[in-house]
Every structure is written in structure tokens, then in C-alpha cells.
């Protein structure tokens, strides 16, 4: 598990740290260092969200990079009265979706059949990797919107209202999508160990 705060723009951040709005204001005026701090702050989150859409880590990184550069160009459109994270994640999700559409045919995640079937488990690490592989496959089988909803809610810690803003859907639909995604994914977690 990573040691970073659950939400880069959340309460877990060091109070001495410069807020997102201040960094955006500096970046708008051409301060590239401020933009770099924003990228550093949201890099992991953006890459995870992009990967939730694209599966392939390299494609996800390309999409996340596209999203950051698009955000740089669109910074004038950002309303600083609102949280920066959902605004950026919407751009990330759109960039990832666009990339997937352009790619047309998505290559399926290739997992060894034995692993998917729960084959040999030589040690705990291998067992963990098998479970992660299954989880990725299960995630991949979810509709894209459902996948994004559960990742934004349970991994990134966004609220239903914020996710509704990111995905452009009603809040009630977000709740429903999270529920259905969880119902499928939880079934895989019986053997999950948090200390892995």
C-alpha cells in the first residue's frame, strides 16, 4: 500500500503545504514550478484513474500526461471556488476515454489461465499477485463509468457529489454505480490481506 494521503487535495495534506487554488493561480500566471507541484501532487491519482479506464499502464501514463497538458492549457477555465481534484479528474477520465476510443480495439489483459483459475500458490507474494490480477480482470469487466465511480470513491476518496461532477451524471447514479461495482469486486476479496 502506498503511504501517500488518500486524497492529495484532502485533509491529510500538511497544513503548511500550499493549497491547490494558490498553485493554480501561480501556474496561470506562467509559474511552471507551481504547475510542477500540482503535477507531483496529483500524478499517482491521475495515473490510477487513467489505468482504471485503459488497463495498460503505459497507455494510462500517456493519457495522464495528455490530461495534465490539457489542464495546463485550460487553467483559465478552472473555477478556483471549486476543488481542483474533481476538475482535473474529469480531464483525466476524458483523456483516457478518448485514448481508448482512438485505440478502437482494446487488447485484453493477458493473464495466465492458471492464475485466473487460482492455480498454484507458492508463497504469499504470488498469492497477492494472483489476487491483484483477478481484481484487474474483474475491474476490466465492469462498464467504464462503474469502474471510474468505484475507483474515485473507494480508492481516491472523492464524495458522491464530486464524482457526479467528474462523470457528469446525477449523484444518485453514482451511488448506484458504486454499489454494483462493489458487489462484484468484493466477492474477490475473501483472501485479501491488507498487510500484503
Amino acid at each position: 500500500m502506498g503511504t501517500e494521503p488518500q486524497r492529495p487535495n484532502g485533509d491529510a495534506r500538511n497544513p503548511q503545504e500550499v493549497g491547490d487554488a494558490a498553485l493554480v493561480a501561480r501556474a496561470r500566471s506562467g509559474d511552471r514550478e507551481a504547475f510542477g507541484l500540482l503535477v507531483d501532487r496529483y500524478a499517482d491519482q491521475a495515473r490510477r484513474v487513467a489505468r482504471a479506464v485503459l488497463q495498460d499502464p503505459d497507455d494510462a501514463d500517456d493519457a495522464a500526461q495528455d490530461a495534465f497538458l490539457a489542464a495546463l492549457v485550460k487553467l483559465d477555465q478552472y473555477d478556483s471556488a471549486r476543488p481542483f481534484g474533481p476538475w482535473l479528474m474529469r480531464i483525466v477520465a476524458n483523456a483516457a476515454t478518448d485514448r481508448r476510443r482512438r485505440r478502437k480495439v482494446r487488447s485484453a489483459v493477458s493473464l495466465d489461465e492458471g492464475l485466473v483459475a487460482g492455480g498454484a500458490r507458492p508463497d504469499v507474494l504470488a498469492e497477492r499477485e494472483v489476487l491483484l490480477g483477478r481484481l484487474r480482470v474483474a475491474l476490466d469487466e465492469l462498464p467504464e463509468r462503474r469502474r471510474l465511480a468505484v475507483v474515485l470513491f473507494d480508492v481516491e476518496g472523492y464524495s458522491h457529489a464530486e464524482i457526479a461532477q467528474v462523470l457528469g451524471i446525477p449523484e444518485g447514479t453514482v451511488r448506484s454505480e458504486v454499489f454494483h461495482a462493489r458487489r462484484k469486486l468484493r466477492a474477490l476479496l475473501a483472501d485479501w490481506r491488507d498487510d500484503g
Partner: protein
Amino acid sequence: MTESHTPFDHRPDARLGAALRAALDPPQDRAAFVARVLAGGARTPAHPVEHLLARWAARGIVVAAAAAFIAGLVIGRARTSVEPSVSDDPGAMIADVQSEPNLLLVATGR
């Protein structure tokens, strides 16, 4: 896993979140990724051409509107100064009013 969750559950599922995070976490190369984004950003102008054009267009519209307003004022004043002033003579005013129907009659007579 013993908690019951409903669609209206507002609590994040820490266990599922941890597992998904592990499944989606990128490699530990954030610095390299940030450097890559910034390198791309260095090639991206802070204000690309379309934004620049949009700003110029907005300024152009404001300037054109101001110019049109000023031109309207100038032309309006010029016309006011060229047109004959309204006479204070009641007889002349009546003659002006009466001359219009005559002109109309001539026109319809053709």
C-alpha cells in the same frame, strides 16, 4: 467484509479501496513521470494560438463597438447641425404640414 452496504452507503470501503489501489498503483517512478509531463509542458505555450486569437478577437470587438459608438455620435451631431432648425413661426410650420399631402397627391396621380 461483514458490513452491509447499500447503494446509499456514503462510507468508502477501506478494504476494497486498498486492494484496488494495489491493483492500479503505478510503478514507483513518480519523479520520472512528473519530469516527463513538465518536459511536454515546456513545449506547450502557456497561452496557445487559439487562446491568443480569442483574446485579440474580444479586444477587437470592444474596440469596434467603441468606434461605432463614437462614429454614431459624430455623425448624429453633424446631421443635427446641417438640418434646418425648426422654425418658431407658426405659419411656416402649417405650410410644412400642408405641403406633405400635396406631394402625396402628385405621387399617386402618376
